[in-house]
Each structure stands twice: as structure tokens, then as C-alpha cells.
């Protein structure tokens, strides 16, 4: 035994699993470290740079509708895989896995609820479910929502987040564009307002149908919104695309949307807009039916 032995230091072993995981996150945009709870409380908006993270349909509904007032419609509707579509795996399996992963039955949640005290019909798309693509279920649920709104004289709000029509249901997906747009035509005839909220991303068949038909169109900042995807356009024209191409600000500049609104202000904006349009409606004795009413009026004049 030597006189001078090696000193024994006490060691504290820190096991990796003792450190709480996922409480902090580096912002994808500004690289700042942000607290996850803070991010969630801030509607998935970076508190440092206002970068918008995707918001799930459930959280979106909670951000717009008074607690306890949301009544979901057609909650259990699922796709029936009418084409028995098969790519790398069958559509039916792909769908089952997505349902398990997301806890959603398809890419839209629809229902009625109250914004402050105003009753509304609301549809919220969820990009997590197969890229928010529109197949028969999305088309049918949105059409039923609009028809329900017509029946109950409710305004309609749809928050879009979608890559477009769902390839796995081919032309049936395509036909949902005509179906939903036709339903909005009937809503218009009843003079009920439709507010379309566009979030990142809204492209393809969704943009080329109901999402572009809002009486008032609101977009979140910097959202990708367009018909053709940027890559397809680049391949076609073989040139660099302009800066900010197909972003909300670009669409506002080109007169394609009414306003860009920060996520936290969307509820207030919708409430103001609906109240603005609907408050006159309550007071007028009859609820006019737009084009038809005008035609009758002109006809009556002609008779006199």
C-alpha cells in the first residue's frame, strides 16, 4: 500500500433518463430555445420570432370555439377505399395506420359551436391526416356541414390545411371539389356568410374549390397557398421562382385574399366579421335568398 494513494472522489452518476426530455425546443426558424409549454400556450407560435408551427385540429377548435359548446358532426365517418387503391401498401392499411397514429378518422373535423355568443358551423382540416388531403370523407363532411348551416341559418367557417385532392380516391376526390363548391353556391343563395381561413399549406384541389370561395378570405402569415405546387411550376418554366412566391403576403399583394391575420387574432377577426354581416340579418323581417329574391323583385316591378 503506498503512502499516497489516489484520492477517492465521490461520483454522482447522472442517468440520461433522469433529465426531463422535450421541455425545451429549438425554434426551427430563429434557432432560439423556447419552452414547449409556452409554445403551446401561444397557439404553437414561436414567442421570439412568431414562426407558426402546425396547429392540430383539436387545438384549432379550442382556439376559436367557447369551451363546452362544440358539437361534432359525422364524427365516425371514415373512408371506404372505393377503388381498393394499392401503391406501396393498400390504402385501407395506410388509413388504419394513420387513424391509429393521429387519433383522427379523416382529415377534417366538422361541427357547430359558439364564437363568443355567436353560433357557427365550423370545419377544421388537419394536415397530420394524409397531408390534409380531400377524399370522399372530407368532401362529404364539408358538404353536410354547409347543408346543416343552410338548414339552421348558420354562418360557415372552414380552416384549411391541405395538400389537395386525395390520389387514393382518384376521380371521386376530384368530384368532392364540385360537390363542396355547389353546396357553397346554395349557402350564398341563402345570404349566409362563409369565411375561409387558409393555413400552411393550402394547395391543389382544396384551394381550387371551397377554400377560395370565402366571402372573406383570411390567411395566416407566410402560409404556402396555391394551385400547382412550387416544384411542378419550376419544372414547367425552368426558372427560379420569385421571392415569397405563393406565400400569404404574395397572395395579398395580388388581390387574392382579404387579409393576413396573426393566429392569436383570428378568433376576434372572425367574430367581428360574422357579427358585422349577421347582425343586420337578425333585424330584417325575412331572410332573403339573394339572386332569387332580386329576380322576383325585378319580375314584380315588370308586372307593375
Amino acid at each position, binding site marked *: 500500500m503506498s503512502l499516497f494513494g489516489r484520492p477517492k472522489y465521490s461520483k454522482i452518476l447522472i442517468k440520461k433518463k433522469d433529465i426531463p426530455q422535450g421541455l425545451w425546443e429549438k425554434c426551427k426558424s430563429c434557432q432560439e430555445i423556447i419552452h414547449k409549454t409556452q409554445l403551446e400556450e401561444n397557439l404553437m407560435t414561436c414567442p421570439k420570432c412568431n414562426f407558426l408551427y402546425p396547429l392540430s385540429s383539436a387545438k384549432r377548435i379550442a382556439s376559436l370555439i367557447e369551451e363546452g359548446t362544440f358539437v361534432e358532426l*359525422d364524427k*365516425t*365517418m*371514415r*373512408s*371506404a377505399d*372505393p*377503388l381498393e387503391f*394499392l*401503391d*406501396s401498401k393498400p390504402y385501407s392499411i395506410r388509413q388504419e395506420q394513420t387513424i391509429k397514429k393521429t387519433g383522427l378518422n379523416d382529415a377534417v373535423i366538422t361541427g357547430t359551436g359558439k364564437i363568443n355568443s355567436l353560433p357557427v358551423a365550423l370545419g377544421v382540416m388537419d394536415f397530420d391526416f394524409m397531408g390534409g388531403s380531400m*377524399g*370522399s370523407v372530407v*368532401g*362529404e363532411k364539408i*358538404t353536410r356541414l354547409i347543408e346543416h348551416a343552410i338548414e339552421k341559418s348558420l354562418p360557415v367557417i372552414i380552416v384549411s390545411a391541405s395538400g389537395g*385532392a386525395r*390520389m387514393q*380516391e*382518384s*376521380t*371521386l*376526390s*376530384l*368530384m*368532392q*371539389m*364540385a*360537390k363542396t*363548391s*355547389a*353546396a*357553397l*353556391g*346554395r349557402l*350564398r343563395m341563402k345570404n349566409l356568410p362563409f369565411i375561409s381561413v387558409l393555413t400552411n399549406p393550402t394547395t*391543389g*384541389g382544396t*384551394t*381550387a*374549390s*371551397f*377554400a*377560395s*370561395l370565402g366571402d372573406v378570405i383570411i390567411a395566416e402569415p407566410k402560409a404556402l397557398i*396555391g*394551385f*400547382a*405546387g412550387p416544384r*411542378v*411550376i419550376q419544372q*414547367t*418554366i425552368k426558372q427560379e421562382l*420569385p421571392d415569397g*412566391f*405563393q406565400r400569404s403576403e*404574395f397572395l395579398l399583394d*395580388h388581390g*387574392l385574399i382579404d387579409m393576413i391575420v396573426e393566429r392569436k387574432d383570428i378568433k376576434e377577426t372572425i367574430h367581428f366579421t360574422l357579427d358585422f354581416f349577421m347582425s343586420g340579418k337578425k333585424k330584417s323581417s325575412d331572410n332573403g335568398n339573394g*339572386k332569387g329574391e332580386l329576380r322576383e323583385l325585378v319580375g314584380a316591378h315588370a308586372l307593375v
Partner: protein
Amino acid sequence: MLKKNKRNANQTTSKALIGFEFEKPVSELEGKIRELKEFSVKEGIDMSSEIKSLEEKLVSKKCDVYNNLTPWQRIQIARHPNRPYTLDYINMIMDDFRELHGDRRFAEDPAIVAGMAVIDGRRIMVIGHQKGRDVKERTFRRFGMPNPEGYRKAIRIMKLAERFNIPIITFIDTPGAFPGVGAEERGQAESIASNLEEMSLLTVPVIAIVIGEGGSGGALGIGVGNRVLILEYAYYSVISPEGCAAILWKDGGKASLAADALKLTGNDLLKLGVVDDIVPEPMGGAHNDVEQMALNLHKAIIKELDSFEGMSKEEIVNSRYDRFRKLGVVNEV
């Protein structure tokens, strides 16, 4: 009724023989018959029995080839460079066509043609995608891919027809709406969306006919009909098979697999309810006998126009709504 020699001049001048790989057995047999005929004339030998048996063989071979086409082969026929286009049909089966131009907002789009016409003595408004026959015209017509102005011109003219109670015929033949910077800047998506909504409210009958390529939203943008027909070898799809293959199979070369999966042929679409009827084509495709094709199309249009006799405006609007309303298949647990 059917006017001969009135086809687009380009159609006849460029009538080169363009054969597909799957047509090889047919063209080989046709070649043999031709050789044999020439030989018998030249040598003065009667070979009529041999020729006759070969001709019989040719008929059965044609049936064999053309009745067993894969969806991908049908798409090749739908894209055949000699296939008749909208203006060819207008010139052959309609009288007094006067083209109307422009969207009154920004531009004239030659990828969609529209105008007043008379068919069988009846006034109609006709609107259709237009492809080009040669390089110059193809570029001019943007390969039948409209800009927003094309859709806005189309709906302007449809609403004009509505005011004067004139039925509308649309011919669909496009790979899709044009994917360009200008098209996006001027609201390609909005122009299609508005057409879907506005067409659903038209109080006159709309008959939409897919004559070649039914390319997604670009096709549907003039396709919200009370009746939707498709030519035998035409196709209608949510995405091109090449595009679908590139996304789902990560390989654009797998287009034939995608074409099978997308269920885009007339028979498939009839089963799904996306189309209401199929207009027969001459054996091997419309380009093989354009006059016969024009006759078939003329007959189909007249039959459809007749079916709206006595229908009220309300019935016309509501039946169109119901037609699209029932499309789609869902499970409700």
C-alpha cells in the same frame, strides 16, 4: 348534318402514321396484306384467298389488341397526336360557329375556345379545351392547359348562354390547368373554384364531354354538367399517372401501375358514377376514323339535348346538384 372536308387543315396534313408498341401485331399484319396485294398485282398472280384469310386474321387481331388495352395504353390513344380536338368536332358536327373571345378582365386564352353554334337546327353555346396540331399551334394553345383567363372566359360565356336560355356543351381535353407563375398570380385556383360554384347554379342544361384527356381540376373547371359523357378511349383522373407515380411510387416510370390504380377509364368511371355514359369510338381510337367518331358524337349530343325537353329551370339546377351530391363513398360506423 355531318360535314366532310371541313376539318382543321392541320389535322389532315400531319396525318403521319403513328403507331404504338402494342399496335405492332396489327401494323405487321396490315403490312403483309399490303405487300401481298402489291405482289399479286405486279406478278399477275391471284392471291385473293390468301389475302382474304389474312384480312380475317387482321379483324380478329384488331379485336384482340383493342379490346384488351391496359389503362396506360388507352391513355396513349387519348393523347395521340392525330386525335380530333374540340375545333375539329365543332367544324364537323355544328353549323354557324362564331367564336367569342376574352375574359373582359385581362386576356384572351387560346387554350379554351368558346362560341355560338347551331347543332341540328338548335342554338347551343359550345366551350372546350383546345390543343394544337403542330409545334407552333401547340405553343400558342399552351398544350390545352388554360390560364385563369380561360376559365373566366368560359364562365362569362356560360352565364351569357343562361340569360338567353341556351344549352351549353363543353368539350374536355386538357392535361390540366397551366402550372405557371402568372397563372398563380392571377388566381388559377380561384378561377376554377368560382367556375365550380357558378356552373352548379346555371339554369340551363350543361352537357360535359371528355373527348381526350380529363386532367384533374383543369378539366373539372368546365365539367360541372347535368350529364357527363366520356369517349371510349378518353380518360379522367385526379392526377396524371406520371405525377401519381412520381409521388406514390417515387418513380415517374411506374405510370402504368398508377394508371391501373387510378381507375380512370370510361368503364371504371361509369361504375363510380363520375360519368353517365360512354360514347363509342371507332376501333383503335377516334383518329382512325374521324368521320365515324363525329357521327357518334353528334348522335350522343342530340340524345342528351332531347332529354332536357320540358324540364323546368329549377329541375335543371336541382338535378345537377343531386348528380354531384351523391358522388363519393364513405363508411359510417
